[in-house]
């Protein structure tokens, strides 16, 4: 939703409120969706440091695996759950990372990227924060076990790898929120639909899904009714008081301090039967969000059916770098060096710019929304001809387009417009855009800047043809570190 101009967001939200129904913010899906993403819905114990009570995990919408820790404050039992979680993550991602496909670029070296990038989907932004802290706990426990095996005998080596996957994916997300490597279901739904809910309310996934899927006229009632369910990563105080705390107490009474697998599995059902439905509900809500997103046709850049799709390729490369790093040193620092941070930020900003361009080019609804600020232009050709313009000392012929835009269109002064759906980048500069109040339309005159391809645009366009323009974003060179710089490294510094 944040990719829309504020005026559009405000007006569409008011219209959604009036209709008491969610309205689409896009006409295409803007992120890659796998056929079988790994959904992770974690729940933590209130007041503790990344102590998981349960995790619903899996790819099958109807049959999640629910891992339960009947006493999350017991570090040994917590470790058992983390081992299982790491195993599920690795079982899903490692085979994908191992399935490589050598690719030789026409003007570059041979690469060996994974044939398909993995994908994790979590319910809310809070789940990303939680998984990151859990992942740090995993790698920290594994490191301690490596250094002193006697001190941590219950640690499985897979903890290091599972934690490494989660750290990299969760750290990747804030810099690249549009990446399909880790998808936050609530954010993704809000990027594609405008719901008449406040930001705080929309962080509750069941309420958000109720709002989006409710029939017109019942959006608020449905969302507010769903608010009583658990909607984030922490169970409610009322649930803890009335249900979870007595169950955990009963488990502790029955096990009498024992931590062996047989005793725990014999008695864990008292906790499992109360927490499993809650974790499963979040898992199902996440799958519901995925199904909803699948109803939208993908942008070309995220269409997994097209192997050359730009973001699909980029995510395969990023995924491969993560796997390669786990096969190597797999050490993770808490902070980046300033230099690497600058590099990562610059890279992320560059990618964000490209993603925004993809949205404007591939999604007519988003493009029309940005016409409000003058950034884009959709209209009908009135005149397509050429005019004489002075370039330095000589007169040259330049393509000219006169385009009629319905309503008032205020140009973004100083911007260069790129003609879409036309071979080669053809850039135009705005000459004038007078508004005719009687006809309620704006007649926009644009002249080719002469940069880019030398096509005679007027030969391909005629009066009555629909045309669309997006802002031209020039690329500026920047001092680059190697493209394979991983997101986090302990040592040494990047060159």
């Amino acid at each position, binding site marked *: 939703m944040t990719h829309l101009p504020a005026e559009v967001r405000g*007006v569409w939200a*008011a219209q959604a409120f009036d209709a008491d129904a969610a309205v689409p913010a896009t006409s295409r899906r803007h992120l890659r969706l796998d056929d079988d993403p790994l959904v992770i819905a974690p729940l933590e114990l209130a007041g*503790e440091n990344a102590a998981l009570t349960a995790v619903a995990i899996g790819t099958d919408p109807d049959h999640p695996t629910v891992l339960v820790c009947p006493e999350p404050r017991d570090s040994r039992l917590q470790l058992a759950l983390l081992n299982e979680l790491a195993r599920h993550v690795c079982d899903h991602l490692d085979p994908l990372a191992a399935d490589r496909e050598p690719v030789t670029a026409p003007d570059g070296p041979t690469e060996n990227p994974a044939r398909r990038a993995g994908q994790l989907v979590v319910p809310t932004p809070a789940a990303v924060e939680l998984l990151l*802290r859990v992942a740090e706990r995993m790698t920290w426990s594994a490191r301690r076990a490596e250094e002193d095996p006697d001190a941590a005998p219950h640690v499985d080596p897979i903890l290091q790898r599972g934690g490494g996957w989660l750290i990299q994916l969760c750290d990747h997300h804030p810099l690249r929120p549009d990446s399909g490597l880790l998808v936050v279901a609530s954010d993704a739904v809000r990027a594609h639909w405008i719901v008449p809910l406040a*930001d705080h309310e929309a962080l509750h996934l069941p309420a958000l899904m109720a709002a989006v899927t409710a029939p017109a006229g019942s959006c608020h009632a449905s969302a507010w009714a769903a608010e009583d369910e658990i909607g984030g990563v*922490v169970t409610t105080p009322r649930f803890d008081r009335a249900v979870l705390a007595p169950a955990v107490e009963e488990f502790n009474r029955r096990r009498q301090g024992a931590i062996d697998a047989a005793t725990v599995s014999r008695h864990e059902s008292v906790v499992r039967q109360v927490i499993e439905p809650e974790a499963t509900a979040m898992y199902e809500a996440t799958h519901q969000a995925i199904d909803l997103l699948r109803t939208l046709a993908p942008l070309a850049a995220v269409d997994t059916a097209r192997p050359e799709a730009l973001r699909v390729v980029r995510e395969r490369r990023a995924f491969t770098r993560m796997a390669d790093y786990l096969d190597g040193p797999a050490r993770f620092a*808490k902070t980046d060096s300033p230099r690497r941070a600058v590099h990562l930020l610059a890279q992320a900003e560059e990618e964000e710019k490209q993603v925004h361009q993809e949205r404007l080019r591939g999604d007519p*609804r988003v493009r029309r929304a940005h016409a409000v600020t003058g950034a884009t232009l959709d209209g009908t050709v009135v005149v397509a001809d050429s005019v004489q313009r002075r370039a330095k000392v000589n007169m040259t012929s330049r393509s000219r387009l006169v385009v009629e835009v319905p309503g*008032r269109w205020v140009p973004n002064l100083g911007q260069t417009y790129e003609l879409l759906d036309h071979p080669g980048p053809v850039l135009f500069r705005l000459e004038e855009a007078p508004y005719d109040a009687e006809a309620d339309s704006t007649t926009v005159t644009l002249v080719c800047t002469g940069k880019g391809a030398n096509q005679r645009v007027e030969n391909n366009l005629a009066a009555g043809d629909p045309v669309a323009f997006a802002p031209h974003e020039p690329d500026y060179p920047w001092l680059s570190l190697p493209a394979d710089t991983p997101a986090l490294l302990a040592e040494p510094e990047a060159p």
Partner: protein
Amino acid sequence: MSGHVDLDYLRGTLRASRNSARDLANVAETRCTKRRALIAAGVDLDAAATVELGDEAAEAGQSPFALGAGETFERRLFDNGYAQLIEVLRHDLGWPESDVSVVDIDAQHPWPHSSAEDFPKRRDRVARQRLKASLGHVAAMARGDSDAPTVLVKPRLHVTFGENLLPVEPDLVLRRSDAPLVRVGDAKGYPDHDHRTDQGKLRQARRQVAVYHIALTEALDELVADGRLSERERTTALEGKWPCDPDDRTQQPSGDQRGVLVLRRGRMTARARIEDLRSDVAMVRDGIVRAPATLREMLADLPEGATLDDPEVLAALPITYEPSSCLAGCPFVKRCRSMAHAAADPRLLGPVTHGVVAPVGDMRTAARLLRGELGPASEAQRAWLEQMRPVAPRQPRAAGGSS
């Protein structure tokens, strides 16, 4: 309502707030007159919401797991002669190795049990004793007396809100033995994850310490007015600099407003950090003096003799619904949200929608104007419609049941 405001009378049968510092910290974030009035009157908001709304009041209280973890942490911090607290101050804040003297107001003047005979009188008496003892110790700390404590636990201080004094009890007032400066501190039971610590919780904690800082400032002002402290001693106590502040990245020369937060590390240990409170102190002060600033102004429309334990009186207090502050912990939120929904108030959907729609009034009017069902009734509406009309034809179909 006019004349003197008797808080006990005004509260009626409603219980007094048990955490005025948290309430005052919330004042910085809300413009709701109802919430401000109840806080200024020292009312427990959850109790007031239950009186007005019954079961409709938002769920109160914390998870027993969070409460247990917090209580265990605080107990451990203060157990064994405050060993862990002293260790943390030495290790994290460069506290000198010299003797540390702790005075615990809670231990010296314990609260009576609520079941005790004549409880209200005894409670008021203990409150006066705690205030008197606290001011005496704070004065000695500010003067740098040799017998002054270096750590004062749970002192009782006051913050002025409108025409009333609201009591607050910081966990700590600290004075280093090698410097005359005095600082407030608070212990929080939630886990510290370094840079991943929940920023919302951290901001709330800082606001609360800012309230304590304001209370300390008021206490020192009062001591100066009483002649128990010189102006110079007051200034030194408030504006002095930690001699070797390990976290000092701000390099403030003087006049700083910093406090100490003690947070939980893992399950067993604690960690102290110095927090820069300048913006938080400014926000809390702005919140306190923001109009309507006095209880008399806030309750101006109430009839003579009205008390806040009357549901009709509570319902008559004016509200300002803002999702960001109200949804974060106001027990009246569901009722206020329904009222904002009925009025199609654009604040309901957050600041972006409010900023766009507010010029024409409410969201239904905006939608009807855009659909052409309503003509602009003013120049402002006409100008708004002209600006926003390009957005309106792009109105997509409703998505109801689109899954």
